[in-house]
């Protein structure tokens, strides 16, 4: 059962075609990774799928419904939640408050109810706080719960970014380069984290550079190069694929992911 269908997605910036007629399906409950050499158009594709960018042509369907071109918050409301590269968190809030604010979609009380602190608003808040602690513990952030995000070590910030996204109760989680810049230990922990997220029944689509991590956790892999899809298949199939090897060998060593 596919949860997400990417159909002929194309994005042009002036004369440059960053993403060219890319199509693939994501099956429910799976981990699908999009990989490709530097400058292949991974980031643009990611923004198109998460609706932070509108496609020039083509579309993204979520459970049959076209979601490309919608405002990001509406896409999130449907259950598609993205993370960001690097360390995008609410820096002036504690880790705990970061995750509490992530629960916005679970809010039952309206703005006036929130202002007047009605019973419904207080119930929302109590639920969010409990859930935030659960998520923080689950992602191994429980002990830094009361630290301001800007004081957290770099390694924690990406986990916190995922914790914020988890708070929005995604059905489909889009991870933007979750392993970038990590050492072997950190990558191991992050891989375990993604596996845990998947065990919770959340479908994961990730865009990544690091081939090794991707090979370990993906059910399917889509490879793009110069904006176009050049291969799709299981990790084993991708590893043996001539076009993929060529695309990566055409790059410098660093791009292969050592």
């Amino acid at each position, binding site marked *: 059962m596919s949860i997400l269908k990417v159909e002929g997605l194309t994005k042009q910036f002036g004369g440059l075609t960053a993403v060219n007629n890319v199509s693939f399906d994501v099956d429910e409950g799976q981990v699908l990774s999009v990989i490709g050499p530097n400058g292949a158009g991974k980031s643009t594709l990611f923004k198109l799928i*998460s609706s*932070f960018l509108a496609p020039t042509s083509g579309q993204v369907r979520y459970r049959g419904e076209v979601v490309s071109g919608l*405002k*990001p*918050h509406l896409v*999130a*409301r449907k259950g598609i*939640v*993205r*993370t*960001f590269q690097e360390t*995008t*968190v*609410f*820096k*002036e*809030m504690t880790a705990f*408050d970061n995750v*509490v*604010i*992530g629960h*916005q*979609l679970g*809010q039952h009380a309206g*703005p006036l109810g*929130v*202002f007047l*602190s009605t019973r419904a*608003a207080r119930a*929302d*808040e*109590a639920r969010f*706080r409990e859930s935030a602690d659960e998520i923080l513990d689950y992602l191994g952030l429980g002990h830094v*719960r*009361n*630290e301001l995000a800007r004081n957290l070590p770099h390694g924690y910030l990406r986990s916190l970014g995922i914790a*914020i*996204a988890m*708070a*929005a109760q995604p059905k489909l989680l889009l991870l933007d380069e979750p392993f970038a810049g990590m050492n072997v230990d950190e990558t191991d922990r992050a891989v375990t984290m993604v596996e845990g997220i998947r065990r919770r029944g959340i479908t994961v689509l990730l865009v990544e550079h690091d081939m090794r991590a991707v090979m370990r956790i993906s059910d399917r892999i889509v490879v793009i190069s110069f904006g176009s899809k050049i291969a799709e298949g299981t990790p084993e199939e991708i590893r043996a694929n001539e076009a993929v090897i060529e695309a990566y060998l055409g790059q410098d060593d660093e791009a292969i992911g050592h």
Partner: protein
Amino acid sequence: MAAVLDATADTAPNRGTTEMRRFLMTAVPLAIALYGVIPLVVGGQPYWLNVLTNACLLSFGSLGVWLTFSIGRVNIAQGAFALIGGYTTGVLTTMLGLSFWIALPLSGIVAATIGILIGWPLLRLRGIYFAMVTLSLTEAARLAFVNAGSVGHGVLNIPNPPGINSPLAFYLFAATMLLAGFVAIWRLNVSRIGWVFRSMRQNEELASSIGIDIARFRVLAFAICCFMGGIAGGCFASLQQNIYPQTYTVADSINFMLYCFLGGLEFVLGPIVGTFALVIAFELLRSIQEYQALVYGILMIVVMLFLPNGLLSLRGLISRRAGGAK
């Protein structure tokens, strides 16, 4: 260390109690100053009562500007909305004969409605761009009223609020408005709406990725700001018994912003402290005539230089020196 101590204390009911204590520690001294100290000190001096009435109303307006700061927008348009509110009260009471008590909320609503219509497209702008456009809005509002036919030369003979006719009564009325505005903004700020506003200031993209309708919340903050500007202008028009296109100019809009900066953007009390400090300082400097603007400017620079987070950051500095922790 402080964070570790907080961790044990930060269970849900305790957080509520801490918030209530923090609220009372600010609201009670404010109420004592407004209802006790100020009437006792200047109760017999109509001139100073008038100045402080004005400070209360300006503070009320700057509380709104402070709210737009909390979503990360520098708003230099509050003069325009005070002007709109003042004109609404003036026209409704003199030409339609409405009671002040009906005209006043309507002034806020008219200002908020115009704020929503203008704010919806403009609030997409950030940083200096939003600031510049709002700055020009003030001038646009003035020009619009200058060319507004019979009211272009001002609305005169606006009645005082019924039953409020002495300087002291008007001061107490303005002080009550200010206290109510303070309580409302404090409540908003500690509620989840305040958290949503702050999340948008820190990162709008991240906020929208977790389902926050950033366009709607931006407009909400701006509309509340404009509402407060409209109310402040309506009260002022009724106090002065007149309103002219030049009652609120670009300089006033800039002042609203400066009040927030001076008091401190991190504190709900900030705009109030900033307004009173600047309004009183300006009055005291009146005696030195031509050097007024110069001294005023130097004072501003000194404060910004040594207290970049506003006058209220002094409180934190002092308690840190005294107590060591926190």
